[in-house]
């Protein structure tokens, strides 16, 4: 179905926002409002696509159906638009001091481009152009990491761009191999790299070559998704980046990389059955959960804690994909829940950092008293990430483990469950130390910028709603996606 307008509505605002941030140099207020407006338009378009994808339709736009949105695209595009809209608000933790228009201008330019390339990656129909868009996310976000120039952030951005670029280059090698398989079977065609066509002809392709391609693709996109052992850049980049960027990188950039893996898995499975892809995904997933969970116990820096928790959850999402249709359902629900909880927690961590001037768990105490609203909200975010009810992550983790046991992967599910328990204990201990106890000297009590907390309180409400009700619009969409990619 042609749907040019919603797609333009989804993508164009971010291009316009980047261009305006580039040209408008004056005081940041106007540019900030324009960016917020762009986020709102984009979110409306994403909501429209989401609601209309419920019927199982796919929407195309552009010459030769260049863009195509189906349920999976709509799900991730919704996460991106929501999280980016939230992160691009003028966060007080972003600027050091109120008057720093230069830095927030750079953030608005590259933050908008970053969001745009993520949205293009999940809506474009061509696998190679999707690769181009995902590579562009690396470049746009790497520029923003050393925004507060410090030794640690320069080092983090170097590690990020080097490991990220090398990883993503391998994903391109995988794409070339898949294209080669296509060409040697069906000849050269301009649209050979479209998802729709690839899925159609996948049963006639060579499973051997596609498996080799999948290894490259998984290592490549897995690097971006923070899967162990390619995750080494992630804790550094996510903890040294400015808070709103961390929120976007941890909340939705990982989801974009998972999107690429899910799509390619479907193609390779259609060619040679899911046994091979399940094996490698399960191995990487379990390793990621193990490394993430064990690091949660050792870490002493709360931004790094959140980053390692992303490694753990990324592993869980991967593991869920191997547990049959019910597991895919749980995985996608987990992806949605994690986007919300993680982005909110990182934004709050930015506020805490701005107040305490330290990201050390030991230096932060008495959070409930010094920041009476930020503290409890942060606690809610971390409790959600620990997988406690009534938050959505509890439901998705429960469904995921149930799918694991039901599909006969008892050992894998039990091991993951044990590791998640270890991570739970680690996070709980750190959180308790931060919330209670006497506040350190020189940290003033009270809350500034109350209105900024309203959207975050909203995310908590959504997270609880996802946990208690599992709204029909969410369950139906994810159900359709799971059905589409596992058959």
């Amino acid at each position, binding site marked *: 179905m042609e749907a040019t307008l919603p797609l333009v509505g989804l993508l164009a605002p971010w291009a316009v926002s980047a261009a305006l941030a580039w040209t408008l140099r004056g005081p940041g207020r106007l540019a900030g409002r324009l960016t917020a407006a762009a986020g709102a338009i984009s979110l409306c378009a994403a909501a429209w696509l989401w609601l209309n994808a419920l019927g199982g339709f796919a929407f195309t736009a552009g010459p030769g159906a260049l863009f195509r949105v189906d349920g999976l695209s709509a799900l991730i595009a919704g996460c991106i638009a929501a999280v980016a809209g939230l992160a691009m608000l003028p966060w007080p933790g972003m600027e050091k001091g109120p008057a720093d228009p230069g830095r927030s201008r750079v953030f608005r330019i590259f933050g908008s481009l970053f969001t745009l390339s993520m949205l293009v990656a999940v809506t474009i129909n061509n696998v190679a152009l999707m690769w181009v868009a995902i590579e562009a996310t690396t470049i746009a976000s790497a520029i923003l990491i050393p925004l507060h120039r410090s030794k640690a952030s320069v080092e983090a951005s170097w590690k990020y761009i080097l490991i990220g670029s090398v990883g993503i*280059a391998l994903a391109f*090698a995988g794409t070339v191999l898949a294209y080669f398989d296509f060409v*040697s079977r069906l000849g050269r065609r301009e649209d050979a790299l479209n998802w729709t066509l690839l899925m159609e002809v996948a049963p006639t392709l060579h499973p051997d070559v596609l498996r080799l391609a999948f290894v490259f693709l998984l290592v490549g996109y897995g690097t971006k998704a923070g899967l162990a052992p390619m995750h080494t850049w992630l804790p550094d980049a996510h903890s040294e980046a400015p808070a709103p960027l961390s929120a976007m990188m941890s909340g939705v950039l990982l989801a974009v990389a998972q999107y690429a893996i899910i799509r390619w898995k479907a193609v390779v499975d259609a060619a040679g059955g899911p046994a091979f892809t399940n094996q490698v995904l399960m191995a990487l997933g379990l390793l990621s959960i193990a490394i993430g969970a064990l690091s949660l116990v050792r870490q002493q820096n709360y931004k790094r804690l959140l980053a390692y928790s992303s490694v753990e959850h990324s592993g869980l999402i991967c593991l869920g994909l191997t547990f049959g249709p019910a597991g895919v359902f749980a995985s996608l629900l987990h992806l949605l829940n994690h986007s919300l909880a993680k982005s909110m927690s990182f934004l709050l961590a930015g506020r805490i950092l701005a107040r305490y001037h330290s990201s050390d768990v030991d230096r932060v105490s008495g959070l409930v008293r010094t920041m009476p609203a930020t503290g409890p909200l942060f606690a809610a975010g971390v409790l959600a990430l620990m997988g406690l009810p009534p938050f959505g992550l509890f439901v998705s983790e429960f469904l995921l483990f149930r799918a694991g046991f039901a599909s006969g992967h008892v050992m894998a599910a039990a091991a993951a469950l044990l590791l998640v328990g270890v991570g739970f204990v680690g996070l709980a201990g750190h959180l308790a130390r931060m919330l209670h106890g006497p506040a350190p000297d020189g940290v003033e009590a009270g809350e500034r910028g109350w209105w900024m907390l309203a959207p975050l309180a909203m995310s908590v409400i959504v997270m609880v709603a996802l946990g208690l009700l599992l709204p029909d619009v969410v369950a139906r969409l994810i159900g359709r996606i799971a059905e589409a990619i596992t058959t």
Partner: protein
Amino acid sequence: MQGLFSQVAVMGSSGVLLCGLILLWRRGVAAYITAFTWQSVVLAALTAAVGYFGDDPQLYAVAVLLLAIKAVAIPRLLRRVAQRFTAGREPAPYVNTGTSLVVSGLLVLLAHAAARPLEAIADVPTRAGMPMAMGLLFISLFIIVSRKMAITQVIGFLMLENAIALLAVLATYGVPLIVELGVFLDALMGFLVMQIFLYDIHDTFSSADVDVLKRLRH
């Protein structure tokens, strides 16, 4: 004609691979940059040759872009960085020269094994070069992980890109032009950002040796 084409493909890809091997036994950033430049020139020539024999004029445009970006623009920028802050010779890598050469020999063997299913299904005359593209891919990865200087890692990454471009041109006579353009744009932007970071690392740490980047290792 087919025989000649196949020979040209094998010669060209061997040349590209050999230029990559130079990094393993030479010491000195200037030599690395020269090796990378020559590698790009050979790759561009091979791309044009595949365009000629395979009758695909689009590849001429790709070859020109390759020459302009990877054989002229990027080496020039690299030289400027190198002159700014290297004493010429890089510190000893994590793996010594002898071992590196043995490892790379093994990697080329591994590449032959990995490329076997590819060669089995390929009907293009260029298929014999594919293991060499794979070999260069593995060797570039090895160079990136075994070297200590940031600029050497960047050169390793650029060679990795060349390896993938070589694989694409041998296996499928190049990816569609629109994709090729996107890839070039990303490669150029990525390199420019890396170059900025090279200066940043030098300014904040007063050294281009990534051994000093240890603050975050835990």
